[in-house]
């Protein structure tokens, strides 16, 4: 997993609520057996029209918006447990998703893939949307060590929560497997106590 410490980037606004994982990556693209290449089909049915042409109205297709931060409406990532959604977001180039609320499974999947989900309150989310829409080049700074996100143009910032264990994992690029395996003796002891 890639390490994550700080990031400064412009952001892409997706001001839709309840974005479910079927929109992030539709089921028909889940037939692959590797983790690669899902970015191509990220938000497939919103990015492309039914005839296959590009939907110019969709934020990801609007040339004025770019960057590796996705700012999205409330309850992002609800629905299915497909980790393909986190893979698609990562593969497309996003390292941070900001929303006022995340679904549980998506949040865990994102963290397991080095993508940082940042939950902010609704007022700050609106501030972000307004800032990006009025000046798409606005730089947003994410500081994981200090758990702080800042709109640099206005110096408006807010703190965000993250589990201390997951924070350490992200900063160092660790994943859970090595940690679990290092506890194998205790796991076997637990099994014996239940037998």
């Amino acid at each position, binding site marked *: 997993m890639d390490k994550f410490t700080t990031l400064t980037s412009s952001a892409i606004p997706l001001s839709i609520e309840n974005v479910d994982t079927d929109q992030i990556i539709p089921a028909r693209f889940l037939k692959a057996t590797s983790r690669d290449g899902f970015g191509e089909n990220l938000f497939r049915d919103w990015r492309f029209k039914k005839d296959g042409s590009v939907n110019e109205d969709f934020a990801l297709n609007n040339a004025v918006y770019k960057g590796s931060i996705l700012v999205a409406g409330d309850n992002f990532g609800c629905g299915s447990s497909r980790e393909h959604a986190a893979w698609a977001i990562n593969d497309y180039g996003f390292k941070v998703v900001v929303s006022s609320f995340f679904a549980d499974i998506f949040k865990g999947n994102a963290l397991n893939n080095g993508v940082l989900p940042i939950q902010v309150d609704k007022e700050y989310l609106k501030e972000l949307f307004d800032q990006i829409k009025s000046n798409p080049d606005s730089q947003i700074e994410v500081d994981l060590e200090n758990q702080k996100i800042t709109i640099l143009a206005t110096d408006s910032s807010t703190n965000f929560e993250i*589990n201390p264990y997951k924070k350490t994992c992200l900063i160092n690029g660790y994943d*859970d497997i090595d940690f679990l395996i290092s506890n194998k003796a205790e796991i076997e002891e637990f099994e014996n106590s239940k037998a």
Partner: protein
Amino acid sequence: MKKTLFDKVWDAHVVKEIKDGPQILYIDKHLIHEVTSPQAFGELEQRGIPVFRPDQIVATADHNTPTVDQHLPVKDDLSRNQLEELTKNCKKNNITLYGLGHKYNGIVHVMAPELGITQPGMTMVCGDSHTSTHGAFGTIAFGIGTSQVAQVFASQCLLLQKPKSLRVNVNGKLKSEVLPKDVILYVIAKLGTNAGTGYFCEYAGNVFEDMSMEGRMTVCNMSIEMGARGGMIAPDETTFEYIKGKEFAPQGKEFDKKVAYWQTLPTDEGAIFDKEYHFDAEDIEPMITYGTNPGMGIKISENIPSENNASFEKSLAYMNFEKGQSLVNQKINYVFIGSCTNSRIEDFRVAANYIKGKKKANNVTAWFVPGSQQVAQQIVKEGLNTIFEEAGFQLRQPGCSACLAMNDDKIPEGEYCVSTSNRNFEGRQGQGSRTILASPLVAAATAIEGRIIDISKQLN
């Protein structure tokens, strides 16, 4: 200290607590399927890590399988490759697989309970959010991502924060035409799609106590649709009776010993939940959804509400419905009875009971998809297939089918489908498809009438 059902099961599975961090939770059963497991096997292989407890894993092929001609090679190259990969990975790692055509094959959340694999007091996971289904047995069961599938392969454990607790109480007498599906659609419509996020939910009250195991599974199945990772119902005589004699259930004295333990699991009188809701059974009517998330549900007798926000309006525009509109008499060309929510024998009994002696509407294409080979056989044994055939319906072979339309069972663009599945997201049943969630009774009535009817009015 008074404990909840959830506390009791969770606490019994904590291997270790990490200071300021998550807990290591032991997993008793790990169910896998073809779509969310290949990358986990790949990761283990790449890192040279063996599967730790292959005998605690059971695999089935369900998400990506055809529902006709299952004896023939799967036509779609990518689907076939995914199924072959599952077979190869299970063989290599000594994992039991109930593949296509096996007498135990079926949707993972239908197959495991009916084989007695699911038992009270267990922890169970699967790379599928509807793993919450198994909570109907008083099991902690929840969906996980593929990285977590790999973690369980490697260690039979997961690193987790203990979720908060939530209890949904429904008491009173349900109307005869109100099914478990209506109860859970009602609860989600009241609470919204994220009320349960961060929580594990217990369903309590006489309504759930009086339900069959099939009904309880339908309810727990949709816990994730209100954001809860899992839902649970206290095990009782109904639970024990269901498990008794099942293929992989404990037998004889061992069974009695287990029952004695299972009887200690229900929530202690006076245990405190972080959140609690109460609903009155008399207020529940047959439900349908009108929008693009499962929280957008109404009683069939009600009109679509009027909300002024962009997401709500986007949703209605997708469905091509108007604010304030009634859905009664809405013409419907597609009906799907199936999915891990409603594809058990009881669901087909409800449908057959309504359909008996009637004829399918000419405009309707209906897909009736049993949840497993065992359900399919039971349908034949009870003669329900004859009732369906005489009415103009045909049964298909088991699988997830049009619930997520990974196979060829896709609803065409722009068409409405009254569906017993669990999600009405945009394009869920095929690109541009419009899903209306409902109970198997409402779905059967729609298939006969070719339009949505007020089922309460017709039956009373």
